[in-house]
């Protein structure tokens, strides 16, 4: 194809790359060196690393994201395993995908009702004889709701890697006298590592920044990296500090990606 013709393809896409991918990341890094009155400074980073509040917040945020990832992995792996063995597995996996098409805010809002003092969960507790709990605006409820939202995104990559395993491996393992448990731990789980890794990546990174959930379900008590960025940008208008936290968030994202890098891409279908 002619050069000019090819350039026509590239231009809009390259402009997008420059303007909406590279420039914004550059701007965040740039802004992180300015204080609230637009003077160049390293103070934001100094504040971040010296003050206990920011470091505790970062540690908490990582811990929350870790727990959310762990819970969704523990629930999702058996789920994916069972679904991959069902007869109409395409249909069942479609049922897993369907809730992801419902707006996240609506799902979070449902939990405000479910977890409220007279809500369904407390009604069930009373049926079993437990006293009504105060569940909304606690750490536990935040972690559980976040895991609920992330579960389908964890199931999908694991399911995909499970269906990639050829049946002959399982048969060979049984022929060689392995028990079901041995087959699972020695064959299936190692072979689905890429799926687990991309599931962890898809769940962990957004979990660091679920500010709408920590606002709606966690009350204002739970401050994650995402909540802090939102607050600095939209409430206190201290963009410099917000960008600094943003840079920390970007760095943690890169670290997670290095640990979990596989060739699989994020996708919902």
């Amino acid at each position, binding site marked *: 194809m002619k050069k000019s013709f090819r350039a026509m*393809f590239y231009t809009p896409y390259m402009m997008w790359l420059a303007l909406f991918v590279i420039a914004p990341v550059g701007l965040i890094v740039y802004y992180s060196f300015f204080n609230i009155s637009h003077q160049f400074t390293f103070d934001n980073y100094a504040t971040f690393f010296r003050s206990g509040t920011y470091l505790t917040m970062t540690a908490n945020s990582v811990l929350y994201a870790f727990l959310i990832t762990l819970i969704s992995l523990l629930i999702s792996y058996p789920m994916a395993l069972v679904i991959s063995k069902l007869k109409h597995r395409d249909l069942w996996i479609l049922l897993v995908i369907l809730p992801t098409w419902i707006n996240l805010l609506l799902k979070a809002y449902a939990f405000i009702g479910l977890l409220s003092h007279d809500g369904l969960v407390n009604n069930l507790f009373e049926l079993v004889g437990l006293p009504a709990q105060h569940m909304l605006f606690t750490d536990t409820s935040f972690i559980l709701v976040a895991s609920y939202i992330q579960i389908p995104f964890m199931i999908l990559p694991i399911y995909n890697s499970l269906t990639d395993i050829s049946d002959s491996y399982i048969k060979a393992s049984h022929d060689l006298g392995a028990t079901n448990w041995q087959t699972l731990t020695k064959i299936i789980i190692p072979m689905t590592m890429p799926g687990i890794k991309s599931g962890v990546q898809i769940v962990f990174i957004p979990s660091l920044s679920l500010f709408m959930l920590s606002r709606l379900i966690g009350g204002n008590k739970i401050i994650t990296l995402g909540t802090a960025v939102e607050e600095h940008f939209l409430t206190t208008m201290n963009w410099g500090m917000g*960008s600094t936290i943003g840079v920390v968030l970007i760095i943690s994202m890169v670290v997670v990606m290095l640990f979990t890098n596989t060739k699989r891409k994020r996708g919902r279908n």
Partner: protein
Amino acid sequence: MSNRSSKLGKIYIVIIFLLLYMPILYLIIYSFSKGTTMTNFRGFSLTHYGELFHDKRMLAIFLDTILIALLSSVFSTIIGTLGALGISNAKRERSRQTLLSLNNILLVSPDVIMGASFLIFFTSLKVPLGFWSVLLSHIAFEIPIVVLMVLPRLDEMSPSLINAATDLGATSGQVLSRVVLPFIQPGIIAGFFMAITYSLDDFAVTFFVTGNGFTTLSVEIYSRARQGISLEINALAGIMFVFSLILVIVYYFIENHNLVSRRKKDKLGVANQ
């Protein structure tokens, strides 16, 4: 042994499915309640749907949301398809990998980072926050998913198709419109649908770049939910559930149709060899 474990497995997935769907069903059931709270169901009524349909503000927001979703998906599909063509044309493997990694940055980066960086970007360019900033952001974060949907189709296409067309005297434009585009069309349609769902689903990025005047459904739900329960949101959830159900069905219908026609084509391909 394996029988018992498969039974246990079935019980397990039924429980998880119940948990997955319970919040959604709970929302929808209460949208039909006469009461005003999401506790104690007070008998069937359609009042909240009535309220919703007479809520002029909500209707305007709904139309804005759809407009943003459609416009942004059209633009992102065009730019994303061109980008995919560009990436697949990249001569060296290395530049292809670099382009792909750059492409995927927005897909993996947390929503708040995207929102915050776009906010800085628009303010430093003095783009007013509102319809245009939201539209541009949506186009921006939909492009990479379109690329990822189109690229596999382009990779499947054998170069001999293009060579044959050129040998038969087709110009570059003709190769593109007669050979390449029809071949990758399924990928383009899938990309368009994914772009629509990304747009409808987005909350965080819109929340950052929307300013004061303009609102989408997600942002409106957020601000109403922060004020507490209003069963009008439940009615909205009911309608949006039906809406996404229709989208899913249409999407899978198209996908399956593609699959079937692709299989047919593959068979023809085998026959021709």
